[in-house]
């Protein structure tokens, strides 16, 4: 069936609400407004205000309330409108959601799902353009996934709701309108393995989330140049599928990591370090990174484009790690 990333997430939400009375959705404007990105449009009418709850602007309180509700036996889906606002809830996430199980000696369980839009590319300026998935991936006790395809946009939510621990789903805002084919029925997908989105022999382009389409476009361009690039979608940043990552890189012996976060301290750095640790002797060239420029995201289109990873930059980086010919 022809659908969009937005509709895929909505379908997953509808299915989850229909399937389990313990599931409810809460966040800013998820109800009457229909969701800042229209993801939850129609769900209030279908499931009512008890299960599709508009919250005040109180990120710390409603994320914390989601944690408490999970402790109390519910299966909350908390929507933080965008990752930018999640900074206000980080204490609840790092010190409570992630820590409660271990800190309580295994007594507590926090089956919470938190969804949020992430990323830049819409000319929203410095305060609305963050990509902090890498920060979240640093925290033990939570899981972090970034659906980059329609199937994952639909299937990761169900998988996250089955998980006994807090799962954070990062939906890149630029992906919501993207269209594609998706076939019924929709069940959960795994929250464990990276996926090869395009097989290739010469080099591995490692990426996730909103950068996947750019990586695939770059691979097409490179194919025309006779460079056969494999595109690996990490899918889950925590726990990272190191095995899948190393399997691809040891095969291609070259890698370029694409990540929309600022370069220094990006998750791309972690990926590079893990390749260093696990495949050093199999590398024919140093792993390269294509990340965002180290600047608060500017509003002007030409500046934002220049600050973000682009297909040209990925192509150039791949050329940089290939053996120089002729």
């Amino acid at each position, binding site marked *: 069936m022809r659908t969009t990333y937005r509709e895929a997430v909505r379908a997953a939400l509808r299915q989850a609400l229909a399937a389990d009375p313990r599931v409810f959705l809460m966040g*800013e*404007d998820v*109800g*009457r*407004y*229909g969701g*800042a990105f*229209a993801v939850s449009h129609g769900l209030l009418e279908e499931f009512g205000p008890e299960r599709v709850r*508009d*919250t*005040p*602007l*109180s*990120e*710390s*309180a409603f994320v914390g309330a989601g944690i408490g509700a999970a402790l109390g036996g519910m299966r909350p889906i908390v929507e933080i409108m965008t990752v*930018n*606002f999640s900074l*206000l809830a980080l204490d609840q996430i790092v010190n409570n959601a992630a820590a409660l199980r271990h800190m309580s000696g295994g007594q507590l369980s926090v089956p919470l799902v938190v969804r949020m839009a992430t990323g830049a590319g*819409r*000319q*929203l*300026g*410095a*305060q*609305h353009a963050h990509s902090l998935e890498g920060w979240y991936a640093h925290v033990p006790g939570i899981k972090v996934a970034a659906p980059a395809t329609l199937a994952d946009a639909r299937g990761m939510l169900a998988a996250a709701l089955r998980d006994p621990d807090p799962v954070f789903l990062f939906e890149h805002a630029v992906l919501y309108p993207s269209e594609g084919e998706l076939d019924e029925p929709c069940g959960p997908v795994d929250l464990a393995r990276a996926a090869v989105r395009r097989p290739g022999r010469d080099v591995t382009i490692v990426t996730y989330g909103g950068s996947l389409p750019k990586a695939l476009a770059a691979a097409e361009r490179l194919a025309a140049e006779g460079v056969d690039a494999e595109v690996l979608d990490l899918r889950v940043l925590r726990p990272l599928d190191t095995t899948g990552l190393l399997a691809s890189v040891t095969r291609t012996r070259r890698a370029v990591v694409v990540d929309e976060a600022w370069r220094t301290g990006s998750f791309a750095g972690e990926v590079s370090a893990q390749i260093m640790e696990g495949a050093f002797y199999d590398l024919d060239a140093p792993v390269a990174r294509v990340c965002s*420029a*180290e*600047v*608060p995201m*500017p*509003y*002007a*289109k*030409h*500046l934002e484009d*220049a*600050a973000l990873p682009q297909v040209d930059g990925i192509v150039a980086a791949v050329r940089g790690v290939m053996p120089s010919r002729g």
Partner: protein
Amino acid sequence: MNAREHGLQLLREMLRIRRFEEKAAECYSLGKVRGFLHLYIGEEAVAVGTMQALAAEDAIVSTYREHGHALARGVPMNALMAELYGKASGCSRGHGGSMHFFDVGRRFYGGYAIVGSGLPIAVGLALADQLQKRPGIAACFFGDGAVAEGEFHESLNLAALWNLPVLFVCENNLYAMGTALLRHQANPDIHRKAEAYGISGLAVDGMDVLAVEETMREAAAAVRRGNGPCLVEARTYRFRAHSMADPELYRSKAEVERWKQRDPLGVLAARLREGGLLADADLAALDREVAAEVEAAVAFAEAAPWEAVADLTRDVYGPGAGG
């Protein structure tokens, strides 16, 4: 300045905001302005009335819905339109866009796009004035939705505790995006929350610019006298959608129409007419004058240069940044 001049002045300021934003919306549909665009139309009396009570030495902190505050403060319309265009001649060199207007020369400390995050900044600006024994006060605009954020609470307590000169102006337009006041505030009587901090709270009809001016003069004077911060709730309404993306499913056309009966420009014009202070000719003249200013701003923005991509990371750190 006599009553007529003053009245015309207020009308002109509100009209400048109205026409500037109508043009901005037009440019948005043409794709010349991008990103988020939050229109202030309907709320002009709050910005214009409040600015009457502020002096050059006062600092201003606003939100992402700050076109009106910037214009009323006197930031040149050319620089604002150029900012919406993303040009280097913009008030923020095109780095900020609609949500991030700045003009340090006029102590306009900017538009903040994280709801509630401007309040602590205003508290700090007031602390700097107090510590340096300067006369200025800090005026901080925010919406009813921001009242639910922890920073509202922390900032009012801190300002009150330290007796800081902050004028907290809550623009209560009854909605936080699509969430009505009664669905985000357990006690919707916002100005009464001042009591929790032992400061004075006032409410005013935000559609009546003269009422706003009077209340703000009173409040600002008290803050200036060293009575500590004051919280003023201006009851107003947003005539347009929250942003250009908002389908407005959460309110009825009828409700919007009812409020438009109290259009702040209409309310003032009627008042002036009653007093025989406004003639049709005056209105026509104002319209022409403001239309010309807006056209000039667009021409300026169109002609303005782009920031060079080579300068992308300039201004991330200051000149001679140590290290």
